[in-house]
């Protein structure tokens, strides 16, 4: 029931010393605002860590650090960083602590120690035994130390090659610590981080079938790693049994997620495997549909050699959203996707019992046509949203299932 609010009082807390040709005009590029934010985050996180280490019975903190940007001095870009003195306010009360009470700034010393901790961390190139030990904690101390690592791993991101950022205390003339753009990478190498990155790539490996009934597979990679192999709905069903045999050698193209620089999981778009002596490729329905939509989206007006309109970007995006939803909800196969002459996107599912067509128009409306193959009878549904057509699609899927 308490919160802290900044007051109008402040004190000089630190100076950030940017050095490099970009700063010769004594100006601070806005690109570097991220460095200031990262600094505040780092000292905030460090203050929590220091507090929790010194107060092992506490699980939470009830203070907050607020920094503000002071004037940028000459000589190079050297902004003052001020700390706002906070007041602790409890619910329903103006303030328990008057502004002129010395106790008002009871966390000032803690924040100064947090600042010095960060400066020392930078000075030591990111090395800290305290931080390393704390990261092993499974409770709130571990969480606080991970927050420190996460914050300082952003240091230097806005710097260019050859530029430095110096950290100075309020009374220092020289830099207490200095970092370059490589600092964040060094921190990530030292401690790792929970940050993930994704990229599309092809990974070769061996299938390990953990549970075939539940479609749970992993991919053993040549470097000895083993990552969960994920797939869009229905894709595993499209793969041949031999492709998913335990021990099958495959090449998987997909979205690779890396955590701490290591492959963490893989979402398959295509799977290629040697079957009966020749390579076979299976592609996920989403991938096939995406490729078709990309083709449709790349068309220009007059694509039919006449006056046909090309579907616009928002129409293609809407089609992607609606079709993905229908395929996932009803387990539909990938439709044949193509443009109409008036700038709509049309998806066609030729089936045994029912032929279905869904048109996504430029104004976002949808038209669903279902035609009974045997009788030639049809019905049409015009709808404003995907939910309205989903039920009708569900019926046709049921009819196909019964056939």
């Amino acid at each position, binding site marked *: 029931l308490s919160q802290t609010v900044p007051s109008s009082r402040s004190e000089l807390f630190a100076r950030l010393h940017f050095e490099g040709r970009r700063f010769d005009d004594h100006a601070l590029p806005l690109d570097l605002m991220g460095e200031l934010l990262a600094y505040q985050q780092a000292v905030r996180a460090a203050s929590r860590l220091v507090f929790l280490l010194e107060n092992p019975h506490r699980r939470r903190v009830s203070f907050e650090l607020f920094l503000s940007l002071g004037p940028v001095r000459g000589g190079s870009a050297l902004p003052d960083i001020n700390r706002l003195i906070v007041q602790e306010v409890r619910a329903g009360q103006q303030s328990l602590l008057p502004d002129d009470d010395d106790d008002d700034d009871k966390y000032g010393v803690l924040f100064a120690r947090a600042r010095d901790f960060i400066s020392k961390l930078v000075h030591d190139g990111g090395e800290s035994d305290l931080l390393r030990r704390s990261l092993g904690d499974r409770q709130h101390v571990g969480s606080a130390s991970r927050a420190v690592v996460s914050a300082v791993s952003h240091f230097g991101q806005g710097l260019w090659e050859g530029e430095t950022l110096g950290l100075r205390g309020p009374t220092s003339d020289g830099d207490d610590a200095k970092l370059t753009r490589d600092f964040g990478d060094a921190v990530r190498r030292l401690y790792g981080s929970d940050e993930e990155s994704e990229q599309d790539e092809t990974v070769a490996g061996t299938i390990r079938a953990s549970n075939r009934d539940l479609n749970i597979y992993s991919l053993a990679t040549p470097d000895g790693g083993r990552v969960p192999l994920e797939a869009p709905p229905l894709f595993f069903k499209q793969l041949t049994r031999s492709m998913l045999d335990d021990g099958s050698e495959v090449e998987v193209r997909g979205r690779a997620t890396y955590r701490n620089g290591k492959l963490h999981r893989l979402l398959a778009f295509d799977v290629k495997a040697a079957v009966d002596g020749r390579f076979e490729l299976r592609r996920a329905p989403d991938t096939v549909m995406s490729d*078709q939509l990309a*083709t449709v989206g790349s*068309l220009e007006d*007059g*694509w*039919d*050699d*006449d*006056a*046909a309109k090309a579907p616009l970007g928002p129409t293609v995006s809407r089609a992607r959203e609606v079709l993905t939803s229908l395929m996932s909800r009803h387990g539909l196969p990938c439709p*044949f996707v*193509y*443009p*109409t*002459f*008036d700038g709509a996107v*049309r998806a*066609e599912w*030729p089936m045994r019992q029912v*032929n279905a*067509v869904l048109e996504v128009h430029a104004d976002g409306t949808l038209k669903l*046509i279902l*035609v009974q*193959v045997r009788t*030639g*009878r*049809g*019905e*049409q549904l015009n709808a404003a949203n995907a939910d309205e057509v989903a039920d009708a699609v569900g019926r046709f899927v049921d009819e196909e299932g019964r056939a």
Partner: protein
Amino acid sequence: LTLLHRQIHPNLVRDGRSSWQAFKPSERDELQLSVSCDTKASAQVAFERHVARRNPKGQNLKSFGVLSVLRVECQQVERAVVADPVADDDSHHVIDFRGLADLEVELVAQRLHAFAEARGWSHRAA
């Protein structure tokens, strides 16, 4: 039994199969579907005439190939077939969809397409 040939644009074909929109006339065509009558031009000749023509940008028209329906199949779906010779093509005919509601246009196009698909490609680009 006279065949009527329809040029199928490559953008309406995937994995060798065409969409039924290929047999759906547009509003721009005033609901009349252009075909070539086999008595005047075979599927191959109709194809060659088509791709020799140029669009307003000066590019040759495209065709993946030719699908064909019988005149009698048009009668089955109650559509009239009318000769409509043009300057460079005396084989030009139209299948008349006028007077049909939106859904009926789709249903007729779908049936004509089904007839043609069952027959297979009459001619394909090399």
